[in-house]
């Protein structure tokens, strides 16, 4: 245990402290340790893992709805595309940039950018549709310099370079691949309601009726392991298993 006591300052001590305070002010007025990033003209370099605006790649999307389900702010809503699939839309009037969606997106269909400084003139525009999330957007930029904060063991160093930073990462870091597929663990309990078939976005579940018997099948090659059928199955007889 460490006890902190503060002694009274004597006159000499006080004078010293006054002098020290004035000294700091005088020194800083000559050689200041300025830490300012002059934003509209300069831009701070953000790391590649920065959580900014979100881009979307429909080719990679497996329609698992997980981004919408995990969004704590309900900012992501799924919209039906012309191809009958549901793709995410983001309402930046709600988005909290936690990127739980990106961390949930198994196939990296969602990816981050370094865009974070945007002003909207009204709230309706803040809803970003799927169509708008595919190509990198353009933002108003006035910066000519890139500022990087570097911390060495002595002090904060501010490195300024005359370059315009790209706000988009070329590569999307892949996630660990954990192949899972849906399987029926208790076919006898199936009521044959087709809910799994209907909810499946990849068409991996098929059914056919012959001779008073319905044949259901999950095509493990097509199954993306999204887990929607498992979630929706009213009898809870589907399960995700490791491939």
């Amino acid at each position, binding site marked *: 245990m460490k006890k902190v006591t503060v002694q009274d300052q004597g006159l000499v001590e006080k004078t010293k402290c006054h002098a020290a*305070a*004035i000294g*700091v*002010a005088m020194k*800083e*007025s000559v050689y*200041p*340790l*300025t*830490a*300012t990033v*002059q934003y*509209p*003209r300069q831009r701070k370099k953000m790391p590649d893992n920065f959580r900014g605006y979100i881009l979307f790649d429909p080719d990679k999307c497996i329609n698992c709805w997980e981004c919408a389900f995990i969004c704590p702010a309900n900012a992501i809503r799924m919209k039906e595309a012309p191809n009958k699939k549901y793709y995410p839309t983001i309402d930046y009037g709600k988005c909290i940039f936690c990127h739980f969606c990106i961390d949930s997106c198994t196939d990296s269909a969602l990816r981050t950018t370094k865009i974070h400084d945007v002003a909207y003139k009204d709230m309706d525009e803040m809803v970003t549709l799927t169509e708008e999330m595919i190509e990198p957007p353009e933002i108003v930029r006035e910066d000519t310099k890139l500022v990087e904060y570097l911390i060495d063991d002595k002090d904060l160093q501010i490195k300024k370079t005359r370059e315009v930073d790209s706000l988009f990462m070329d590569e999307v870091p892949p996630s660990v691949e954990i192949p899972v597929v849906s399987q029926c663990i208790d076919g006898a309990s199936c009521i044959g309601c087709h809910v799994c078939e209907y909810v499946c976005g990849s068409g991996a579940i098929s059914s056919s009726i012959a001779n008073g018997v319905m044949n259901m099948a999950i095509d493990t090659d097509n199954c993306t392991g999204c887990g929607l059928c498992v979630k929706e199955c009213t009898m809870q007889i589907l399960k995700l298993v490791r491939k």
Partner: protein
Amino acid sequence: MQEVINELLETMMSNQVSVPVIQPVIDMAAQVPMVGLGISFILWTPIFALLICPGLSTLGIFLLFFPWIERKLCGRIQWRVGPREIVPWLGGLIQLLADTLRFLFQEVIVHKDAHRPYFLQFAFLSFAAALLPLLFINAGAVIAIASPYGVQLLLALVCLFPLFILGLGWASNSRFAFIGSVREAFMYFAYEIPFIIAVLAMVILFGTSNPMLIPDKWGIILNPIAAFTFFVGAAMATSRMPFEIPEADQEVAAGPHVEYSGIAFGLIYVMCYEKAYILSALMVVLFLGGGGGPYIPGLTVHLGDLMGIVWFLLKVIIVMTTMFVLRTIYPRYRLDQGLTIGWGAMIAISLVALAWSIVFVFLQQGGVL
């Protein structure tokens, strides 16, 4: 009629501000009938003092640019930049112009509980009243009204300020303004006595209270204690840190100013700079050798009276800057601590300063010094 004019002209011509370097230009202009008259009128020392320096024009320029200096310097000390983007290549020099114009065009709100006539009158009156002491300040050899009691008059006028601030607070009819005004009144009594004693000490030391006759000696060397008292007193009078008690932003929300908006606030806002300007000028006159400065070959001769003005202004800027930079160094005292300092330490120190002066004068007369 003609005689009167001639006499007036003569008086004017005999008391012109002399600037040798532009004398040929003035002489040339004097040939043109009306222009010549106008130029000599402006160069007439009292008018020059009133309108140009240390009077209105200088004050105006100060008000426009001094806050910029202050903000830039404070910004620098605080590891940032200060106003800049308005004209990046000039470092945002005209920032205050934008602020002033903005206040000018901003709505002036008089809320319904305020005493409307006084609410507005005090704002303008206080601005006007703050100009009066300028008449008795000399910038080098330039003064509007040279009076044997100049310093006393100046003090008397400076002491009017708090009354207007009280008025502002009263007319605002707001709780914070009320507390701010009361604090101002308390502080007023606390700093006024040591402040006056410090000035008196200098008057005794110099043996005159006519600013024009105060020698170019550096009072700060002759009586540093008085200088210190004066400086602290001035900081208290202008509500500078650590004595920014009446206007404490975080406590009483700028106190008397809390209800003012638009240009009315603009006037009050600049009043504090006016006050600081006047007190700094007085400090320069009493302690920093007024318009005196080292002889610079070439310049001193050519600039004539202007050289005094330049030195004077330079010193004023330094004193004012010091006064304003205090806010980056100190937090704020509490009201009772401010009062204790005023009534206790400050009076004691000021009395020491007075004694110092008296001893000094005795010693001087005794021929010891």
